[in-house]
């Protein structure tokens, strides 16, 4: 238990100590070696890197150097990442065996280990993190502490204004004033639909009930999205603090965080954070000596995508199958165990403390007219800089994919970007310059969604991509309502036929009809949006669907059944490599003569395409 005084002292003292984390000119003889312990870097052995650094420092008896685990720095493609502060040197793709050299050269001799410095897309060597193009257009609000603090040390969070917003709210603001501030900031739900956060808080406050709850939706099920996970792994206290502020505002004293069991690191850090906050009296009874009490519990999900839907999530917390409830009534009135409940997403909460501390006007000055602040995207797929990016609303897709993302690898062309996961759509080249916000994305047939942003190059078949998403929806449909349970299955069957070359002329009509019917009649948001990947690809890539149906042709060669593998006689040198590698002996030809593939035997595996040294074989 700490008094307010003691918290202030910790903040002041720790802030001085940690100045070198954010100030390149910090006056100190200390050095901090920061190593990313997000899921990506942990998978490529960052825990071993941390152990090695610590062991070597001990063996060499080096003082004034600390090794710190942090959350995600964002540039996952270059992981594992090691950053040395205060000088801010950025080492990329570090291996456990590189630690010795880094300590000897960098720490002891004061020289850079050049071979480990990060190279930008244009091949220039970058000494410091902030010199990378990847970071130049970003603005970090929700990710403010990720990569700066050790998420398992509450003192480090407190040092960077942690729990200051809670103090301000509890000691000098009424609940109505807090809600007014959140409303004025223009913050909208970051989970996908973009409902104004202030309004949600107000409805829950106005609802009548002896008991109210605050819930954090951390069931990030959209495949390819990892924004919420990174926030929980890198800065768990920011979510706890915001849930307390929300609890004070709506009149709740109990919170639940519903998080995927597939995120073990996030779950563990949250538990550590909750325990530390309880020890300090920042969770529990009479926080900061006021009348306000609040506690938080973690509830684990068990791998059901539909539980990201708010009412399904409530069912799951109550211990049942996660099947959505019919709305209205909305959770603000009838939520967890029938009580008024506020549900916000992780990233939404992560914005709250900065809105309180810097003011609603500051927040509202960032972004577009109707979408304020920043949005975190998990940038993935066929793009050079895979990672986590946070940009002001209104940034264009081109800026994200090309300036920040560094463009498309392997000399290929941009074909489409997919936002919103299984509920969203594909955005083609002609809309690359659309400034991204909630409205603009839905106008072009996609949606903001939770923030997954998958880039696809010109080798991708859009019919196959639509089929991929429908396959996902079918296996994740909860089964409660017929349009989603049966309708999406029928859509998938049609798409399967197309990809196998068995589709008929009227399949396209059937597909469109089903899509529009499911959209109108499914009971929850997931069912209503399930046809979106089909609708958007039909809108922008209709000719590919027609080719699949009429000519049984897949221009990208991704649909195996439709692939037609041929040897170009003008390029074939008759070397025989394809013939030797063909697993089914479908290729014939004499040495130094043009070879031939027998289409009746060929299984279209593509081995010969990859093996031909003269690129004479095409799908």
């Amino acid at each position, binding site marked *: 238990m700490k008094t307010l005084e003691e918290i202030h002292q910790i903040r002041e003292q720790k802030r001085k100590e940690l100045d070198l984390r954010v100030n390149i000119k910090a006056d100190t003889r200390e050095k901090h070696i920061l190593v990313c312990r997000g899921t990506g870097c942990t998978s490529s052995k960052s825990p071993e890197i941390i152990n090695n650094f610590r062991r070597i420092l001990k063996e060499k008896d080096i003082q004034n150097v600390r090794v710190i685990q942090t959350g995600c720095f964002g540039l996952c493609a270059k992981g594992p990442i090691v950053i040395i502060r205060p000088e801010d040197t950025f080492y990329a793709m570090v291996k456990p065996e590189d630690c010795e050299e880094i300590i000897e050269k960098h720490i002891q001799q004061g020289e850079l280990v050049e071979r480990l410095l990060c190279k930008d897309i244009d091949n220039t060597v970058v000494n410091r993190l902030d010199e990378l193009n990847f970071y130049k257009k970003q603005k970090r609000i929700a990710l403010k502490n990720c990569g700066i603090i050790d998420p398992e040390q509450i003192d480090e969070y407190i040092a960077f204004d942690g729990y200051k917003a809670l103090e301000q709210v509890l000691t000098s603001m009424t609940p109505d004033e807090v809600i007014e501030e959140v409303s004025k900031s223009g913050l909208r739900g970051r989970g996908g639909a973009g409902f104004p956060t202030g309004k949600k808080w107000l409805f829950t406050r106005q609802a009548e009930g002896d008991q109210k709850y605050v819930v954090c939706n951390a069931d990030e099920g959209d495949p390819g999205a990892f924004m919420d996970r990174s926030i929980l792994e890198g800065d768990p206290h920011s979510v706890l603090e915001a849930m307390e502020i929300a609890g004070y505002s709506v009149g709740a004293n109990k919170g639940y965080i519903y998080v995927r069991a597939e995120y073990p690191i996030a779950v563990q850090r949250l538990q550590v954070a909750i325990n530390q906050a309880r020890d300090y009296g920042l969770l529990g009874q009479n926080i900061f000596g006021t009348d306000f009490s609040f506690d938080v519990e973690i509830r*684990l999900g068990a*791998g059901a*995508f539909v539980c990201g839907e708010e009412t399904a999530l409530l069912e799951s917390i109550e211990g049942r199958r996660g099947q959505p409830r019919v709305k209205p009534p909305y959770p603000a009135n009838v939520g967890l165990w029938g009580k008024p409940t506020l549900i916000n997403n992780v990233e939404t909460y992560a914005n709250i403390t900065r809105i309180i501390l810097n003011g609603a006007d500051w927040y509202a000055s960032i972004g577009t007219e109707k979408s304020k602040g920043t949005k975190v995207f998990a940038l993935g797929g066929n793009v050079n800089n895979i990672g986590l990016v946070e940009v002001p609303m209104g940034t264009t897709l081109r800026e994200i994919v090309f300036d920040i993302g560094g463009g498309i690898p392997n000399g290929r062309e941009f074909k489409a970007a997919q936002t919103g996961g299984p509920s969203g759509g594909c955005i083609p080249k002609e809309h690359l310059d659309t400034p991204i916000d909630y409205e603009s994305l839905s106008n072009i047939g996609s949606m903001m969604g939770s923030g997954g942003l998958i880039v696809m190059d010109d080798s991708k078949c859009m019919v196959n991509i639509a089929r*991929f998403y429908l396959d996902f929806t079918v296996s994740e449909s909860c089964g409660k309502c017929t349009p989603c349970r049966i309708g999406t299955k029928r859509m998938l069957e049609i798409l399967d036929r197309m990809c196998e070359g068995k589709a008929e002329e009227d399949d396209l009509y059937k597909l469109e009809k089903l899509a529009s019917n499911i959209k109108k009649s499914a009971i929850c948001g997931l069912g209503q949006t399930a046809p979106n990947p089909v609708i958007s690809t039909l809108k922008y890539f209709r000719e590919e669907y027609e080719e699949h149906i009429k000519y049984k042709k897949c221009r990208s060669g991704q649909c195996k059944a439709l692939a037609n593998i041929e040897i170009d006689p003008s390029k074939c040198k008759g070397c025989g490599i394809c013939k030797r590698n063909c697993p089914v002996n479908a290729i014939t030809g004499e040495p130094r003569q043009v070879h031939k593939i027998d289409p009746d035997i060929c299984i279209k595996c593509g081995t010969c395409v990859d093996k031909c040294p003269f690129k004479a074989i095409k799908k």
Partner: protein
Amino acid sequence: MEKNCVEEKGTKEVKEILEKYKKDKSNLIQILNEIQEKYGYIPKQAQIEVSEYLSIPMAEIYGVITFYSRFTLEPKGKYNISVCLGTACFVKGSQALLDRLKERLKIEEGQTTADGKFSIDATRCVGACGLAPVFTVNDEVYGKATVKKLDEVLDKYMNQD
């Protein structure tokens, strides 16, 4: 044979898990998560005990288990290989990895080989999108995978006990 063993000694271990929780129906999923973690599946004996402890009918417990993809009714193989089919991995060719795995082990996703050594899962996003495409063998993550790399890893485990 092995299964019976698990079920017998399971009784005591399941009771230990149950005692950590209040007899509150909302704890069902938490308890099942712990049992799944412990055994790699949810044995029938454990379901019976959970049913008695929380006063929830077996049918309802079965309904919850089959609804959530993390819960399984059959034991996984000694080496459970999961191929990530999240979008980021999919666009980078993870389907080919899954196809190859099914071809070599001659089982489908969700199944276990007859000798109990291998099982295959298709998962949605393990969160290592920077390393796409990704597959995992138990807790070990293999990133930037190719069919060739998968073959090598599989050979390694096939030669192990």
